[in-house]
Structures are given as C-alpha cells and as structure tokens.
C-alpha cells in the first residue's frame, strides 16, 4: 500500500475517502461472511445433537439393529424361579455382494439349512444387497458347521433370544416377544412400554445387564392351577377354562391361567383366535357369583339385616317376564338361606330392600366400573348400564345383563373377606404395608364377617359342598355361578358359563380365587352341569394342592366354622340344636 501512496501523491481527498470507505467495507463484509459460516456450522452442530437424541430405530438389513442385540430383563417369580431369560443364539446372514461363487455357496449351504429350497437360497444370495437374513436363531453346532464351510460373504450375528423355561404354564402372564425381542403381549409388552423403551431411546439397552423383574406369581401355585385347569378342559369337555388366585391382603396375583393358552417360546401362537387372557381381557355374565356382591352390598347398607326373611314362594313378574328360582324352595327364606339355595327371587327382594340406586352405586364402589389396575396390557372394560331399570337391577342382582372380567370379581371377593379392605390387583411384588396405603374400605369389617359366614355356609350346606369335600380342612367358602350363555342374542340353556368365586381359609382369609369353566359337559351320568360340579370341584382340587404350598394348615374340627357364625344367628342355631337333641 505504501507504493500506492507514493505513486498517487497528487491523489484527491475524495479518492482517499473512497478507499477508506472500501477498506472498512471489506472488513464489515468479512464479518458478514464469518456470520454466515457460523450459521452453517451451527446448523450442522444442531443437526448432530438432534441425531444424537433421536431414537435409534433405523434398520440394517431390514431389521432393527438395536433390538437384535438388546437384552431384556430376567423375569423371576416371587421365590426367585426364572420365568423368562435371555439366551444368546447365532443368526446366519449373507452379504450377497461379497459372495464370489453363488453356485458353490448354495451347494454347500443347502444341506445345513433344512426346509429351504435351492431356488429360494439362490434368490437370496444373488444380487448386490449388503445384508440378507438366511436363518435366525440357529444352534451353536449348526453355526460351527457353517463356519467351517468357509464361504465368503456368509456371517453370523449373535442375537438375544427370549426363553421361557415354563413353556405354556405362565403364558398369559408373560406374554411373548417377537423375533426382534420387542414385547408383543403380556408383561413383556408392559416392560417395553416402561423401562426398556426409555433405555432404548438413549441407545443404552445394548448388551447390558438389566435389573431383574420380580413378579408376584408363585410358579408352584401357577403350575398346580395350570395342571388342574388342563385337567378340567379334558374332564368336562369344556371349550375354555380360566382361573386366578390373589393374595387378599396385598392384591398380588399369585397365579393366573387362561386356557386355551400358547407357548411363549412360539410367539406366533399367542395371536391365534380364542387364546385371549379370559381373566383380564374377557368379560362375562358371571351369574350367581354376583349374589355374594348383592349380599355384601345389602348388609353393608344397613337396610337389610342378616336375620331378615324374604318371600320366595312365587316368581317375580316384570311385564311379560317372570323370574323364578332354579329348584326353588317355594317358601319364605332367611337371608342365609337365600344365599345357600341361590334363590334368584330372594336375591331380587334383598336388592330391592337395598334400593337399585344404592345397588348400582355399590357396584361402582367395589371397582366394577374401573379399568383393571393390573399391569398386563390385555384388559377389557366392564359393560354395566349407567343406571338400572327395575328389571335390569333385578337381573343384575344375580349376575345377568351385565358383564365384568373374572379379575373384577375376584378383587371384589378379596376385598369382602379382607375385613372389607380392597387392594388393587398387581402382577408385581408388593409388601403389605404398601398395600395398606393403596387400598380402600369397600364394606365394613362387620359386613365382612357376615360375608365370610355366608361363603363358608354355602360350602358346608349349599352348592359348594362337592368343593368342600375335596378341600376339607382348608376352610374354603365361595359361591357358584351357572350362567346361560348368550348365543345370537338369546340365552341358550344348553350352553353354560360356570364360575366359582371363593376365598380361603375363611377363619383367617388369605387368598381369593375364581375358577371359570366355559361350556362344560357332565363328567358322568351321575353328575350335573351346574357350577358346583365343575368350577366348584376344580376349586376344591386346586386348594387341596396349593394350600400346603402356601403354608395353610388344615383344620378338621368344627370350632372354626362355629366361630364364623354371627352372634344374631348363633342363638337360633343353638336353639335348633338343643331342640334337635
């Protein structure tokens, strides 16, 4: 620049000013250029951050990479028995563009891949693709053999495969995972919606030891229940059977079986028709098991007392319909008799004494309108009318015209016998202290005592006698329900859905159970088709098996039964006894 200055000695002030202006302008324009580049690099940085936080769901070879190697937590039962675990298995893939001699590759591979046609394999290996699966989840021995063939462009990925040692036994609890290790049903799906999904979003679930999950299930009890229900399907030629046992104090589900079931190790079978989880995802008209609910509600309302008597001599007319009793007594019945003989007429009168609005409110209070609190994704809402008509309330009192899931019913029964304190059901471990904070009082402890007495009475003298014969000593009590199934909009008297909702031991209630048998046939000529013969008998056999496992001592004296009888009725019993003597 110095040369310019000297050469232009006579330069004008104007030119000098222009030059200065230009010089400053270049400087300010460089500023703008810098800003522009900063914006460009800023956008690039932001994009990198965005990609870093993005969900890594992109695929390699058509499969989600992250899912392939993603591990899932081990699932244990309440005693630490493994219900589900990961095993590492090799999967075979090819990189067609690296395959040198397709003929050779096909020829060598074919004997190692049973059930694969030569044409299919050739088509897979031909082309310029970078990744094609040939066979997922092989044995290590097959891997070794293929590896030793030394074919270029053929390689293995070690995948995590979910394995369920129990097979079918806890199928509906565990659910299943698909080939990419994503939960598609049951608790596996629930886990995906929770912890694992969060981890996978941050790309941290790869090859990582995950915290094991402990379920409330007791696999020994689960096994017993499963065995008995499989036996029931066979014995009664039923189309389906289901059962669930809950701990009344903690709400923990101890066992849950729904048949027909599936093998979680063969996940495709989980989605077949008719294999739904009937305990949580099936709603049914549970019939006379509802009478326990009606009794509990009526007694708790204070409008009905346990000593009241009800006229069951004639059927009750509602317009064109008349509701009658099945093998009715045709006389005035006391409240315990109404329950014991499962009188529809008596139950309607009890409900009417309570009032249909009160009855509807009671159904709501015991959680029949709520969604199931259980963690399984397969659940269904109840179908109960918003408000009852006269006839609607009448049929509802003995369990018709409204449908709920079996788990709703067992939760209600659990609450009734647990001093009226209902704890929401769960599939995970829960302490009793925790349960104390979660639950709510649905009936008073006094009413709870009446209900326990009634349930036990039905086992001793009513439709639960067969059950009680099988499970003598374990103080089981419960109510049968034999509901005609609705076929094409009409009740079909030849097809029944039978249920038995029970609790044991009733001198110190610990477990509540419901057993469902769908369309049972009579076991032999002597036996009947009603619930006591099948659902009841199954309940008896299950209790007989599981009570010793659960540490419940049998009690063969009548002392405990006598202690269950309410004070109001004790005097009458004593009178009749003394009269008899």
């Amino acid at each position, binding site marked *: *620049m*110095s040369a*310019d*200055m000297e050469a232009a000695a006579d330069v004008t*002030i104007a030119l*000098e000013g222009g*030059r*200065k202006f*230009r*010089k400053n*302008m*270049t*400087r300010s*324009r*460089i*500023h*703008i*250029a*810098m800003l522009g*580049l*900063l914006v*460009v*690099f800023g*956008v*690039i*940085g932001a*994009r*990198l*951050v965005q*990609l*870093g936080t*993005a969900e*890594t769901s*992109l*695929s*390699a070879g058509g499969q989600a*990479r992250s899912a392939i190697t993603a591990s899932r937590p081990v699932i244990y039962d309440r005693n630490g028995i493994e219900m589900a675990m990961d095993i590492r298995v090799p999967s075979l893939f090819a990189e067609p*563009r*690296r395959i040198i001699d397709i003929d050779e590759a096909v020829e060598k591979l074919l004997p190692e891949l049973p059930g694969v046609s030569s044409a299919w394999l050739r088509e897979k290996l031909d082309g310029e693709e*970078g*990744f094609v699966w040939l066979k997922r989840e092989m044995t290590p021995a097959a891997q070794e053999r293929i590896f030793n063939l030394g074919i270029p462009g053929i390689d293995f990925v070690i995948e995590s495969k979910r394995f369920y040692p129990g097979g079918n036994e806890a199928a509906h609890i565990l659910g299943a995972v698909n080939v990419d290790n994503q939960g598609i049903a049951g608790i596996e799906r629930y886990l995906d919606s929770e912890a694992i999904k969060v981890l996978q979003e*941050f*790309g941290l679930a790869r090859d990582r030891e995950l915290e094991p999950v402990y379920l409330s299930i007791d696999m020994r009890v689960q096994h017993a229940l499963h065995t008995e229900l499989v036996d029931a399907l066979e014995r009664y030629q039923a189309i389906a059977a289901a059962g669930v046992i809950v701990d009344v104090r903690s709400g923990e589900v101890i066992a849950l079986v729904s048949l027909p079931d599936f093998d979680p190790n063969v996940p495709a079978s989980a989605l077949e028709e008719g294999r739904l989880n009937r305990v949580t995802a099936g709603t049914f008209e549970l019939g006379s098991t509802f009478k326990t609910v009606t009794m509990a509600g009526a007694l708790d309302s204070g409008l009905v007392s346990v000593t009241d008597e009800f006229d069951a001599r004639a059927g009750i007319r509602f317009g064109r319909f008349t509701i009658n009793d099945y093998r009715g007594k045709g006389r005035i019945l006391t409240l315990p008799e109404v329950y014991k003989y499962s009188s529809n007429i008596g139950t309607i009168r009890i409900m009417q004494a309570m009032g249909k609005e009160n009855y509807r409110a009671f159904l709501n209070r015991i959680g029949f309108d709520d969604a199931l609190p259980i963690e399984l994704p397969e659940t269904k809402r109840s179908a109960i009318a918003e408000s009852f008509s006269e006839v609607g309330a009448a049929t509802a009192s003995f369990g018709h015209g409204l449908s709920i899931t079996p788990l709703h019913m067992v939760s209600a029964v659990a609450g009734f016998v647990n001093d009226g304190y209902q704890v929401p059901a769960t599939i995970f471990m829960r302490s009793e202290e925790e349960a104390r904070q979660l639950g709510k009082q649905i009936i008073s402890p006094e009413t709870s005592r009446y209900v326990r007495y009634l349930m036990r009475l039905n086992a001793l003298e009513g439709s639960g006698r067969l059950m009680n014969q099988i499970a003598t000593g374990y103080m089981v009590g419960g109510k049968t329900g034999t509901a005609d199934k609705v076929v094409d909009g009409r009740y079909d008297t030849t097809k029944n859905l039978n249920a038995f909702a029970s609790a044991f031991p009733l001198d110190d209630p610990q477990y509540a159970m419901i057993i469902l048998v769908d369309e049972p046939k009579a076991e032999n000529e002597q036996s009947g088709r009603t619930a006591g013969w099948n659902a009841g008998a199954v309940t008896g056999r299950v209790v007989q098996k599981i009570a010793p496992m659960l540490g419940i001592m049998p009690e063969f004296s009548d002392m405990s039964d006598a202690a269950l009888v309410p004070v109001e009725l004790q005097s009458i019993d004593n009178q009749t006894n003394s009269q008899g003597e």
Partner: protein
Amino acid sequence: MFSRAKKTPVAEWWWTVDRELLGALILLLMFGMVLSFAASPPVAERLGFSTWHFVIRHALFLVPSIIVLVGASFLSARQARVSALIVLVGALVLLVGTLVFGIEIKGAKRWISFMGQTVQPSEFVKPAFAVIAAWLFAEKMKHPDVPARTIAFGLVVFISALLLLQPDFGQTVLVVASWVALLFLAGISWWVIGALIGAASGGGVLAYFVFPHVARRIDSFLNPGTGNNYQVEKALQSLLEGGWFGRGPGEALARRYVPDAHADFVFSAAAGEFGILFSLVLVGLIAFISIRALLLAQQQNNLFARLGASALAIQFGLQSGINLAVNLNLAPPKGMTLPFVSYGGTSMLATAFGMGLILALTRRKPEERIATGVPLRRGDLAQNAT
C-alpha cells in the same frame, strides 16, 4: 532454530505465522488419518484391495501435504501470487487434458493419469483461482481503469465451462461461490448480490433440468421414499448407530454399507465408531479453522492479502459445510469431499496448498514494521500526514 536473536528465515517464519491456525490444520490432518482407519478398510475390502490400502495411501500423502502446507506458508504475498498463477495455468491445462485423455469413473471424466497416479486437476484449480481472482479484484480496487474484474469474470466462465463438461457440478459451485464471495467482499452493492442470488437459483434450476444426475439426487432428497438415496440412507444409519459415544474402533456395523465411506461419506462412517460427541469436536475444529482464517484476513492491511485469504477461507468453510450437510442429510448429495479428512491425494495436496497460502497471506508482516519503525496502522499514519 526459532531463536529471535538471529534472523533466520525459519525463525522469522515461526514468529510471524499464525501458530494457532497452523496447529489446527495439522490437527485436522491427524483427524483425517484417524478417520481413515475407521472408515476406509471396509471400502478397500469391498473394492478388492488389501484391508489397509486406503489407510496406507492416506498416510503416504500426509507427509507431502504437510510439506506443501508449511512450504506454501513461507511464501511472501508476491510469491504466493506467482505460485498461484503457475498452479492455475498448469491445472487449467490439465483440466482441458481431462476432457481429452481423462479416465471416466462413475460417469464423469474428472481424473487424468499422470506418472502412474490419477490426478484430479479441478482440486488445484479451486485455491489457485481464489488467489488469482482476489489479486484481480484488489488491482481493480486500486486502479479502477484496469479491466481486472472482467478478466476475473472471464476466468470463472472458462473454468465453469470446463468443469461442467466433465461434468463436475460440485466443484463448479465452489469456484463460482469463491468468485461471488470476492464480489461480495469487494463491496458490490446489495442490489447486485440480490440479482446474483437470483441467477444462482436460476442456475440451480437449470442444472436440475440439464444434468440428469443432479436431478436424480435432488429428487431423491426431496422424496426419500421413492428415490435412489442409498448412500445417504446408509450414512445416516451409521451416524445413528454410533449414538453419543460411538461403538468403538472396529465395532460399527453400518459403516460397512456406506458406499463412499473413505471419501465423501467419511464423516458419517467414522461417526458410527467414534460417536456424535467426537463428530461435534471435528465440526468445531473445522469451524475454528474457517473463522480463525477469516479473522486473520480481516486484520490484513494489504487488500490483496485480505481478499485472498478470505476467499480461500470461505472456500474451505463452504466445502466442509456442504460435505457435512450432505452427510447429515441436510442437503442433496453433491460429490464434495471433506478437506483434509476425505481420502484423495490430489484433494489433500491442493487443500494443503490453499491453506498454506492462507498462512502465508496472514503472516504478520515484519518487512513493513522494519522499513518504517512504526509497528502498525501505516495507512492511518499516511492519512494523518496528508
């Protein structure tokens, strides 16, 4: 050797060159080496070379590149101009040569065989043109009667025509962009800038209709589902696979399927192994180099030095930015390398030459200080005198 007591050329160079920029450039070269280890072995295997084919060649070019970088930074402004002119003329001759003797790779004649090596002359045209055009602009500003701008414009048209005949759309964009940057820095009015932006968009639209490969790339960028965007898809996969911390050296899987993992897509291929945090550091380093070079250019009193260094810095920043944007699927594929990082001997040497010239042009000028005894602001002093 670097003692200040004796005035050796090396000592003078050491105390006047911008050591931060030099360090950053050498660091970037090292990054390129590390990324080559991550990204190129699968490509080499796929192309049938030995595993370390590209790594070894990358390393072999590293030494001459550093020599060119440092050597060029020794030049004075005048020598820089002369060497740029020689390189430009040589490269243009070769560029014409590619059209005649060129080797066709992937549908374009961009390479010429030269003593057993393939050379891409367009790589050398870029920095040389930037320096010569800057000189022409500086001359025009000092002597308005010289038709320097017209000559510069003629050069742009000539080079663009040669590049488009290859065809090499990416390099054309960079050459034209450096010319536009110079126009902008030289103080062209905003009206003309607006008109040029309009012309550029027009040119883009024209390219879309004239060059089928450009149209294809843009189509598949706009409709990811339909088009043939295999490269970009695989590149993104590789990036995502790595996550924040990468899968570790040799562990990434997706990079195996990134086609140009050693060249245009080296960034995303390596990101799978080293992770996004590492990538952010790399982007930061490139940004530092561009901004540092522009800041230094801004401080130059010599108009030619200021314009030349800025044009080179903008070229470097723009090329890196476009490559990164393509890698991150922010822009359609262009066929542009990441300077100093992508594999390519010609590109590496040419970038070293350009960056060396930036260092040369932005050296603190001892001759000015020594001549007058007044440290800085000589122009201001002269103005005060008049």
